[in-house]
C-alpha cells in the first residue's frame, strides 16, 4: 500500500507515493536523494537527521513521511541563500566547529533552532540547547564558539 504525500523541501514541492512506514529521513535521503541529512543512530539520540519542519527543528527519524504531508522542510542543502552561506555555516567554518562533518548538518540545524528561540544565548545555554545532538570529534567546544559567533553576527 502506498500513500500519496506532497512535501515541500528547500522550496521545491515533491509529490510521491510512499509506504506508510517510511521515515521522513529515508524519504529525504533515499526517495529524493538529498543525502546531506544523515542517519547516525536508530534510537533518536544522535540528532544527525535534524531538519527544520515548518521552521521548527525536528529529528527526521522520529517522523513518518506521511506525517510530514503538506509541510515545508528545510534541510542542510537549503540553508544557504542566493547570497552565499548561512551565517551558521560561515561560523562553523570560521570557528573549526566540525571535523569529520557527519554530525554537522544536524548540528547546524539544531543550532538554527537554538538561535530562533534564543538569539543571544550564553555558552551554557548553547551547551544545554545542543545536548540532543552528539558529536564524537570536536568535544563540542568549537561548536559552542561557532554558535556564539553566529549569534554575534560573525564578529567573534
Amino acid at each position, binding site marked *: 500500500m502506498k500513500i500519496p504525500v506532497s512535501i515541500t523541501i528547500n522550496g521545491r514541492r515533491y509529490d510521491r507515493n510512499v*509506504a506508510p*512506514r517510511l521515515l521522513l529521513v529515508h524519504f529525504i*535521503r533515499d526517495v529524493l*536523494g*538529498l*543525502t*546531506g*541529512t*544523515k*542517519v*547516525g*543512530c*536508530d*534510537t533518536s*539520540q*544522535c540528532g*544527525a537527521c535534524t531538519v527544520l519542519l515548518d521552521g521548527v527543528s525536528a529529528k527526521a527519524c522520529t517522523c513518518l513521511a506521511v506525517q510530514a504531508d503538506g509541510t515545508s522542510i528545510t*534541510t*542542510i*542543502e537549503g*540553508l*544557504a541563500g542566493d547570497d552565499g*552561506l548561512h551565517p551558521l*555555516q560561515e561560523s*562553523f*567554518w*570560521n570557528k*573549526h566547529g*566540525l*571535523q*569529520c*562533518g*557527519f*554530525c*554537522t*548538518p544536524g548540528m*547546524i540545524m539544531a543550532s538554527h533552532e537554538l538561535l530562533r528561540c534564543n538569539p543571544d544565548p550564553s*555558552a*551554557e545555554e*548553547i*551547551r*544545554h540547547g*545542543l*545536548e540532543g*545532538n*552528539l*558529536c*564524537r*570529534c*570536536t*568535544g*563540542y*567546544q*568549537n*561548536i*559552542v564558539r561557532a554558535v556564539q559567533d553566529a549569534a554575534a553576527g560573525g564578529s567573534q
Partner: protein
Amino acid sequence: MSASTFGSGIRRREDPRLITGSAAYTDDIVLPGTLHAAMLRSPYAHARINGIDTSAASEASGVVAVYTHADTVDEIAPAPCAWLLPNSGLTIAEYHCVAKDTVRYVGDIVAVVVAESCSQAYDALDLIDVDYEPLDAVIAPKAAAAEDAPQLHDEIKGNQAFHWTVTGGGDIDEAFGAADVVVKETIVQQRLIPNAMEPRAALARYVQATGELTLWNTTQNPHIVRFLCSLVNGVPEDKLRVIAPEVGGGFGSKIAVYPADFITVFCSKKLGVPVKWVETRSENYQATTHGRDHVQEIEMAATSDGRITGLRATVHAGMGAYLSTAAPGIPTILHGLMLSGVYDIPAIHEDVYGIYTNTTPVEAYRGAGRPEATFMVERLVDLLASRLGLDPAEVRRRNFIPKFDDGHDVVTGLTYDSGDYDGALTKLLGKAGYEGLRAEQAAAREKGRHIGLGLSTYVEICGLGPSQVAGAIGFQGGLWESAILRFHPSGKVNVMIGASPHGQGEETTFAQIVAGELGVSPEDVKVIHGDTESTPMGWGTYGSRTTAVGGAALALAARKIRDKAKIIAAHLLEAAVEDMEYEDGNFFVKGSPDTGKTIQDIALMANVAWNMPEGVEAGLEATSFYDPPNFVFPYGAHLAVVEVDSETGNVELKRYIAVDDCGPQINPVIVEGQVHGGIVQGIGQAMWEEGVYDEDGQLLTGTMLDYALPRADRLPDIEVHSTVTPSPHHPLGVKGIGEAGTIASTAAVYNAVIDALQPLGVASVNMPLTPERVWRSIQESQGRN
C-alpha cells in the same frame, strides 16, 4: 602567498562541502541497480548452530539471495589477523565471516540476505529460522583465563590468545625486595565502544565481464582494505579499487577489515550487480570493534623520598571472540613498551595475557594501548605521593626524565625523540594557578566540600613507525607513507597521498606543508586521498601517523621539486646552479631576487618543456616514500579540577587545563580541535562510558540510549596551551596530536576524583565514575551499607 602559511590557523579546505551537505559518505553513494544486504547476527553470546532454515526468507518479496556458511566458505577466506605478535605463543582462532557451526558473540554473522531494498532485506532476516543450542559464555577476561572457564575455540587451550612480556632494566624482584615503599592497585580499564558518528558501510560493485571490483568503504586505510580483500575474496589487487569517500570518524573502529565487508564483496561478485550494506547503530554497538577491556594488577617500588625504583604489572586483556585485524599489537607493543612514561624507571616487568571472551572483538580505540599505560603509571605515581604525603607534582618532578633534545633510552627498549617534561608541568601549574587551587581545596575541605586536583603527565608513541620495526614486531605490512606532488602548467598543485584522513583536516595542513616548502598558496593545492586508484600506496590513518609520516613524505617530495626547479631556473637565467638561491617560491641568482623565476614560471616551463636543461626530464612532479627512522613521542601535562557532591556522588568537572607538545604546529586551530576532541573522549572513559555485558553475554549498552556518550552540557571549556619541542629526526620536526588528549585525560580526571574523595577515605573506584559508583564507594568507606 608566503611560507608563513605554515603555522597559521587558516580555516579548513574540507569544510565547504561538509557544511552544505554536499559531501558524499559511503551510504550517500547510489549506483544503478544496487541491491541491499542485511546481516543476520547471533542473539547468543555462545551457541552451537544445529541448523538453519532459509526457505521462507528466500521466498520473501524482493529477496534475491540468502547465503549461509555453506554458500560462502569456498569463496570467503576467514577474516585475517594481521599483527602476528612474535614470542607470545599467539594462537589465532579461525574467524569465519559467516559462522560455521558455532557463534561466539552477540553479533557474530550467521546469514546474509540480499534484497531489492534495505527494508525487504531486514524483513527477510526475521524469516530465517536458526536452531541454536546455547552454550555457557564467559565475558570477563580473568574469568575466561580460569581453569574451569567455558572454552571458546576447540583448538585453543585456556582461551589464551597470547602471553606477551616486556622486561627491561635491572632485576625486578630485587627492585621490589629493596624498596622502602610499594604501592599497589588493581585497575579495570572498562570496555569502550568507539561510536564514530558515521556507521560503517560498504558498497561493492563487481563487473563479471572484466573481473574488476570497486569497493567504497568506511575505512581509515583503503590500501590495507585492498590488500586484505584481495587475499580473502580472491580478487587480484590490480583489479581491485578501494575508495574511502568521505569518512565520518573512525577512532580505530575503521581500521579493521570486517566480515561484513568481505561478505558484501562476495555478494556483488556472486550476483554481478552492486551490493550495499550499511550497519544500523545497534549493529555498530554489537559488531564494530570495541576498545580497552583490561584488568591491570600493578605495583610500583620506590624509595622513601619518592624515587621510583621499579614497576611490575600483570594485565589480562579481553580480546573478544576473535582477533581483529590489528588487535594483538594494541595491549602489548603500544602499551607495555610505554610503561616508563615520562619517568626514569630503572626496572620494569609486565605480563600481558590476551584472552578470548564471548564478546565483540577489541581493536585499537583512540590512544590504543597508550591510555591504558599512562593510566597505570599516573595512578601509581599519585598513590606513591599519597603514601609519602608529598604533592603529586613534586613526586613527578623527582622522577622526570631530564630535558633532552636528541634521544633518550628507556628500559623497555624505546628511544624517545625529544622532551622537556618538567617544562610542560611547570607551564601547566602556572597556567592553572596550582598553588591557589590547592589553597582553595584546603579551604573548601574546611567547609566539608570535596574539591580534587588530578595531574596526568604523559608521553606517547606515535607516528607509526619504522617498517623494519613493524616487521620485527609482527605487523603484516609496512609503516611508511608516500606522496606524489604534481604541478600543473598553470602552477596549481595536486597532492596524492596514501594515508586517508577522515576528519583530521590534512587536506588543509598538507596544503600548508606545500605552501611552506614551495611558496604557493594553500588555495592552489588540492590534496587527493582515499582512492587506491588515484593515490600511491599508504598504510593508513591511525596511530597519529598521517601528518607525522605522510606529512614527512610530502615535505620530502616538495624538496625534490625545489631541487629540480632550481636546476631549471638556473638554466632559464643562464646561471650556475650553485649560484641560485630560493626564497618563498622565488628562484634567483644570488643578489638578484627581483629577476628570479617563480615556482609557477618554472611549472609552466617544465610542463611545456620548450627549453629544458640537458638531461632534465619534462614535468614538475615528484614522488617520495618516507620510512621514519624512529617513532615520534609527543608529551604534555594535564590537570583536572573536580568537585564531588558527597551526598549524591555526582562529579562536576570544573576546569580542565592542558599543555601539549606535538612539536611545531602546522595549523594551531586544527591542533586545538584535536586536543579538545581527544580530551573529551578520555573524560568519557573516566566519567560515563562503559560497554556492559550481562553474564550471558548480552550487550546491555547496545544503543545510544544506554551507552553514555559525552554531551555538550556536561563539559567545561577546556583550557589549551602548548610548548614546542621539535622531533630531531623528522623533516618538519612535527609529532602527532590526534590521540594525545585521550591518552592523558582519563588519568587526570580519575586522579582528581580520588583526590577529592581522600578525606572520605576512598582509595579507588572502578570507572566510569558515575554518581552511583562514587556514592557507593563513599558509603563503603564510611562503613555504611
